[in-house]
């Protein structure tokens, strides 16, 4: 006799149902194709090779060796007495020893050209969380951050999804190797103004993702001058700073601040992580380094929502404090990445494909615009699909990175073995030859 009454569906938030997480874009769709048919040298030699994941696997052996030799220190074993001491700290401050280790590692990467104070290091579970956290702190919902294009597709989610903050692009193009210019900065700022949006800061990635190139010192100075005049913040995401092929080619915004005697530095914040340089994305270790006391205190408190376990801090702390090890690692890692890059660029050139001149990172910014039927986003996506389904390579289309010029693609080279890279390059060569034959 019971009547079926339809239960009213209980509601969810806008954030829960919104698409701002961006996981429906081609950037992520390619990963699906890879997951369904992953390349394996022996078991699936015709599968999809993943070249869309910026992961650093070239120096695992160095890490492994260290961990094997220092396993005791790495676990809590030796520091058993310190266990209780560690327990009395508040989670979100992080272990003093680990913050010191991070600060000294960051100094080493910059070859001592800048100093970092451990008390300004705030720990977060990855750079993803660090960028989001800074956005929560520096901007209110509806405000905007200016970000140079092309940029890392994840920013659309990390900077906007939960924060309600907008990204207003600073358009860069190939005419000057996609470097930021004062005119582009000003244009972006005016664009935001015309939309009645308050700009709260500029967020740059240095070295750049997806360009794989460092930002010139003079450009950094110009950006710093711009944010000072507008009285806004500057966030410098330097997560690839340890992956610059030649250390002298990288200038951190920290160095510029030091040369200016830290005048007006409270507007500057640096994001760093161990995911790229150390190849440890699974460890979820990120930091915010801020020159602004209030930002440090607030970020620290908010980091209670994105903690790094003290066990992970312990594990990595002793490793990062071992300067002999880190010095050796950084040097070897740089060298191996450079070799990979040169192999990649050489192979592409043989196939008739040009890249942007790069000097850092785990990827190349490749120019496939000659392959496009029309210089449009649609044609670019058509080429992307062809490469995904026929050549079986997953690469990232420039439109996912909001590049204003169609035809550019980010191709990663560090997340695979050298052999796999060779296979990928051969496939590209065959593909290009085919095209020449069919069009010629």
């Amino acid at each position, binding site marked *: 006799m019971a009547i079926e009454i339809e*239960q009213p569906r209980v509601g969810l938030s806008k954030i829960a149902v919104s698409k701002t997480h961006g996981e429906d874009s081609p950037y992520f769709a390619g990963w699906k194709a890879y997951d369904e048919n992953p390349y394996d040298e022996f078991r699936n030699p015709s599968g999809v090779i993943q070249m869309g994941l910026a992961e650093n696997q070239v120096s695992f052996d160095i890490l492994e060796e260290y961990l094997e030799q220092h396993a005791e220190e790495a676990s809590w074993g030796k520091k058993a007495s310190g266990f209780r001491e560690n327990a009395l700290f508040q989670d979100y401050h992080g272990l003093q020893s680990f913050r010191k280790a991070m600060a000294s590692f960051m100094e080493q990467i910059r070859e001592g050209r800048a100093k970092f104070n451990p008390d300004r290091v705030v720990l977060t579970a990855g750079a993803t969380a660090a960028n989001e956290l800074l956005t929560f702190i520096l901007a209110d919902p509806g405000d905007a951050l200016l970000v140079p294009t092309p940029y890392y597709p994840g920013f659309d989610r990390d900077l906007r999804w939960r924060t309600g903050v907008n990204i207003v692009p600073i358009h860069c193009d190939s005419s000057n190797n996609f470097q930021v210019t004062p005119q582009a900065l000003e244009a972006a700022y005016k664009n935001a103004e015309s939309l009645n949006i308050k700009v709260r800061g500029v967020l740059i990635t240095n070295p750049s993702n997806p360009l794989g190139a460092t930002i010139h010192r003079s450009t950094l100075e110009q950006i710093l001058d711009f944010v000072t005049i507008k009285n806004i913040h500057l966030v410098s995401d330097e997560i690839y700073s340890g992956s610059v092929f030649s250390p002298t080619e990288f200038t951190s915004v920290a160095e510029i601040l030091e040369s200016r005697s830290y005048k007006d530095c409270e507007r500057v914040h640096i994001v760093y992580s161990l995911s790229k340089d150390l190849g440890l994305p699974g460890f979820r270790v990120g930091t915010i380094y801020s020159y602004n006391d*209030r930002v440090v205190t607030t970020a620290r408190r908010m980091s209670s929502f994105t903690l790094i376990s003290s066990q992970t801090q312990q594990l990595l702390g002793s490793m990062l404090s071992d300067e002999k090890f880190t010095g050796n690692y950084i040097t070897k890692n740089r060298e191996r990445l450079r070799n990979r890059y040169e192999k990649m660029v050489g192979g592409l050139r043989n196939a008739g494909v040009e890249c942007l001149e790069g000097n850092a990172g785990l990827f190349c910014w490749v120019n496939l615009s000659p392959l496009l039927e029309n210089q449009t986003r649609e044609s670019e996506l058509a080429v992307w699909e062809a490469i995904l389904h026929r050549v079986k390579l997953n690469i990232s289309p420039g439109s996912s990175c909001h590049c204003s010029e169609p035809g550019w693609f980010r191709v990663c080279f560090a997340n695979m073995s050298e052999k796999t890279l060779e296979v990928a390059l051969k496939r590209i060569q065959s593909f290009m030859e085919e095209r020449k034959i069919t069009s010629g």
Partner: protein
Amino acid sequence: MTQTRIQPRPRTPQSDADASTISGGGPTTAMRVIVPLQGVVQGRGGLVLGSVIPCALFYLLQFYLKRRHRPGPTPTTPPPTLPEAAEGSPPPVHRVQTRSTISPRGSNGQAHVSYRANSIAKQIDTPYYIGLKKASVDPYDEENNPDGFFQLGLAENLLCVDLVQDWIVANAKNSIVGGDLSISGIATYQPSDGLMELKVAVAGFMSRVMERSASFIPSQMILTAGAASAIEMLSFCLADAGNAFLVPSPYSPEDIKWRTGVEIIPVPCRSTDGFSLSITALDRAFTQAKKRGLKVCGIIISNPSNPVGNLLNRETLYSLLDFATENNIHIISNEILAGYSCESEEFVSLVEIIDSEDFDRNRVHIVYGLSKDLSLIGVGMGVIYSFNENVLSASKKLTRFASISAPTQHLLISMLSDTNFVDKFIKTNRERLHRICSEFVVGLKRLGIECVKSNAGFYCWADMRWLICSYSEKGERKLWDKLLNVAKVNVTPGSSCHCIEPGWFRCCFTMLTEKDIPVVMERIAKVSEVCKSHS
């Protein structure tokens, strides 16, 4: 129930506003007027009008209220303005307003920092944080620092740290790296919501700890880097900024409001009811919120409750579910302390009720964590357990902002799968907890301080109403101050827990050893004797 006969007087509206500024929770007095207006206007005039008109009214009201406020800061109120605002601009707003100038640039030229950041800055001066800091910087040590502070404000479980330590020394090396597990196995990107093996291990552990009150399905779990992340993530999924959750008070001092922009509406529980939740009070709070134009999205309960330590029995859970169903809202049940019920009363998980009855499962979500149960300080691991596919899917995407590191996951898989260790640990933990709890409570009783009979948890909810010189928040704060600075014992005052009755304190005893207790009592006696002689 306490022996004393003091009639609890609810705080006056004025002190209520003060309470909310101190504890950083609850809406300000101003908001109680503004919010309903916004609700009305938004219904008619859309989002723009709905923002502009209340904003204008807000500033008018601010001006009016400023004149009504007591001149100058009192010991109980933090400085009313922030350094930036001190130059004459209006204080930051606790709400989301997208188009208004909320915190204009300070006149010293500093770049703007968001209102969310400002609201945190305000809280740094609250007793909860001041006390935590002071006690952790100068902690008591029997040999090395006998004059140090006793930390009774931090709910970390150190009772079985020796067991965990022993296990780790014996097993950690192999469980993280070594054997078949190379670095590339744990270094690379992992599923952000946790490895399935860990979910399986956690499901088994949760079931064991809750004495098999319910069984948990691993695929309905999301793992994050801490219980705080879990609750915050659920808030982001269930409520928009400006919406509200009903929370029985007193409740835990930690705030989830900072980034979510969600309002917490306290549902007061009274000492005359043993601080247990009454559905009538819940209903009243819900209706009042509705009248003010606030959209209530759900109820957040803690079972056992923090700080009081009450267990919610079956009938209450059923009534809660009925209430939620009637009003079409969610329930978040924080069951983080589920492992600590005493023998006298049985812990019933909300999951068990859902399993057995025909309620709409889509509205029920459990939060759980390991740090309390396993003495795993600093190994933040939080669990969201939900039956709602959409919530699971959204939460999964959110976990990329707070994932547990891979080596920690492997360590936990190893530990939780070691059933001998787990059984021994749970048993020893309960024994030691029970012992320390009784000794502590008895010690307080000898000083004339009664505690609410707690069935669970790490704390006791102590009745110090007869010790405060004036029955007000000011009086409570004075006592807290004496306890902190004279007795050098950090306890959490009821106001930080949003308790409407002054004079109650949360004392957490799990960071003490049995030897410490007499020392703690001696110290508290110093203060209580002085207060007694004054009253």
